């Protein structure tokens, strides 16, 4: 033996690690956008009202995107989130109407509302479980499985309602969750924040999160290391389903209707948010914080353009350009940091 080496390499200083964290750079892009719009319309953009409406309007997508982060980190994908959201909202709303006198849920009490929530979660979880089983056990590629459930869940929702949006939503739910606020913090935002923090905790500090990264980085290595890969994938997809169910209930509270036809691009928006935040579509890398940034960059762009008064047809062009630029910038940085 030629002698042991001197101790392990020391951890790099915090500042250096911070500069290396790619999500910080994306966050700077977001800050830059906020500054830009604030300069252009100082009377309208940097206000508490704009912040509140931005947060509320992003909260449903944020809940979806947190779940999507886990899925994409496992090198999978879930195209069904928007449809499962609609399905869960339909289940919740129909259940609440069924439990109310005369099929009118407007005056329903807290008990009915909570049962509606359970129904929505169960509906979402069921689709998530189905997706997970098909991906993990039947070994069908996630793209195909969730493309199928994207259509099936929406179809099921339309079957249940005959294509007509459910119109009576408990006022208690609308006032409590949809529009309620405590100390200037809207409840929708608080709920989304709780989900986000819980997701971040789960992903970055627990064994479940570490194994999610492992499965995405190399499913075979994880398998050989004794990690139950298939069971883990089932849990991840079920989790996304549950979050889609919650998002459906939140959407019901906010809009007061099931908006059956209004969620066809939720899946792509969630995926874009996750990828924009630095999560790799190839799996193994990602963060919840990045997803938060990824949700807010398009939201700030859209809101900013409306406030500044950009001609409406420029908005999607400009938004796409910023998205591509932000991801390209992140890729360049990533490549220069890694790779030998």
């Amino acid at each position, binding site marked *: 033996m030629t002698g042991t080496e001197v101790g392990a390499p020391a951890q790099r200083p*915090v500042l250096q*690690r*911070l500069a*290396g*964290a790619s*999500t*910080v750079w994306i*966050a700077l892009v*977001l*800050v830059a956008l*906020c*500054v830009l719009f*604030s300069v252009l*319309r*100082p*009377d*309208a*953009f*940097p*206000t*508490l*009202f*704009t*912040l*509140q*409406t931005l947060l*509320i*309007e992003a909260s449903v997508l944020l809940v979806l995107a947190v779940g999507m982060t886990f899925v994409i980190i496992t090198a999978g994908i879930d195209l069904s989130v928007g449809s499962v959201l609609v399905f869960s909202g339909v289940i919740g709303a129909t259940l609440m109407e069924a439990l109310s006198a005369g099929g009118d849920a407007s005056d329903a009490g807290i008990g009915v509302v909570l049962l509606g929530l359970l129904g929505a979660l169960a509906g979402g979880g069921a689709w998530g479980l189905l997706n997970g089983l098909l991906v993990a056990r039947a070994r069908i590629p996630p793209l195909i499985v969730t493309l199928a459930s994207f259509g099936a869940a929406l179809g099921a929702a339309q079957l249940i309602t005959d*294509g*007509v*949006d459910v*119109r009576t939503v408990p006022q208690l739910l609308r006032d409590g969750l949809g*529009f309620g*606020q405590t100390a*200037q913090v*809207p409840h929708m935002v608080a709920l989304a924040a709780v989900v986000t923090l819980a997701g*971040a905790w789960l992903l*970055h*500090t627990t064994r479940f999160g570490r194994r999610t990264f492992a499965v995405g980085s190399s499913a075979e290595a994880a398998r050989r290391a004794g990690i139950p890969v298939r069971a883990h994938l089932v849990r991840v997809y079920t989790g996304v389903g549950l979050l889609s169910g919650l998002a459906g209930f939140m959407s019901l509270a*906010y*809009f*007061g*209707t099931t*908006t059956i*036809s*209004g*969620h066809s691009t939720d899946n792509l928006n969630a995926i874009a948010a996750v990828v924009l935040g630095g999560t790799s579509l190839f799996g193994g890398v990602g*963060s*919840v*914080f990045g997803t*938060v*940034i990824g949700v807010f960059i398009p*939201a700030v762009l*859209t*809101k900013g353009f*409306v*406030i500044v*008064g950009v001609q*409406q047809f420029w908005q*999607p062009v400009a938004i796409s350009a910023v998205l591509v630029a932000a991801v390209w910038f992140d890729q360049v940085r990533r490549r220069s940091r890694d790779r030998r």
Partner: protein
Amino acid sequence: MGRMRAGTLGVAAVLAVLAAGCGSTGTIGEGSGGGQAAPPENKNLVLLPGVKAEPFYISMQCGAQEEAARLGYELTTQAPDRFEAALQTPIVTGVLATRPAGVLIAPTDDVALANPMQQLKDAGITVVEVDTRLQDESIAVSTVSSNNEQGGVLAAQTVAGLIGGQGKVLVLNTKAGTSTTDARARGFEQEIAGHPGITYLGQEYTENEPAVAAQKVSATLAAHPDLAAVFATNLNTGEGAATGIRNAGKTEQVRLVGFDASPNQVEDLRAGQVSALIAQDPATIGRQGVQQAVAAIEGRPVEPEIQTDLIAITQADMESKSQYFYRTEC
């Protein structure tokens, strides 16, 4: 824990920037300064149509812009990519932040847009509904729309005339919950009931997608090969229905009565693919909407309900009624 620390710092940075510019204006559900009217030098109006790039709304925009300019106001337009409440809501709240004097809006859902529009009203902004309306009638000071039910009645009469009072008819609706098309379908249904020789096959929903409209027509033709007429309740369904009928090769057999006079539909009418168009008058809706908004802003009396006329255009009289064709640019 690099990521967690980075995350916390980042969130703090974003909040700091926003809080730094934090004005005291506006919280949700609360008006600024108790909802007082806009100061007289605020000459900004905003038009919020239901969706971008639809000739009906563009014609409305043209009429509104002309009238606004005539009255000394500035009108801008912001519309969502798709006819969806989730897309229109952020635009409404964004426009609210810019504090116009008045907003003309076509709500994309009669329930979901109630809260954002209430916020507009609470902030002291005059709200006028154009085209579609909310279930809650307390928010808008005025609603200007086509008498859609009368339009449906007119369509039924036109259909009856075209098929000689005999045959099967289908109605194509868009998305459930759209007040306008529902009213048209309702008017049609009521009027057609008075024609005993006509069999009403019911209405199909097309999600406002021409492709779906074409599919529904093909499916109906498969089930009822002797279909005599189709009433399409709006522009997109009309375009789709014409395609479906053409693909089935039944242009001679099936009389199509469309709603709205978009350029494509006008061409179809000229070519005989469509037998008649029930045209609204979106330019007048835009003009009237602006007039009512300005009246409310300037403290003059307001007409709470204005119904504009619809007319039927056939191949025969189309040239004399060309002012009712919808425009694609102002």
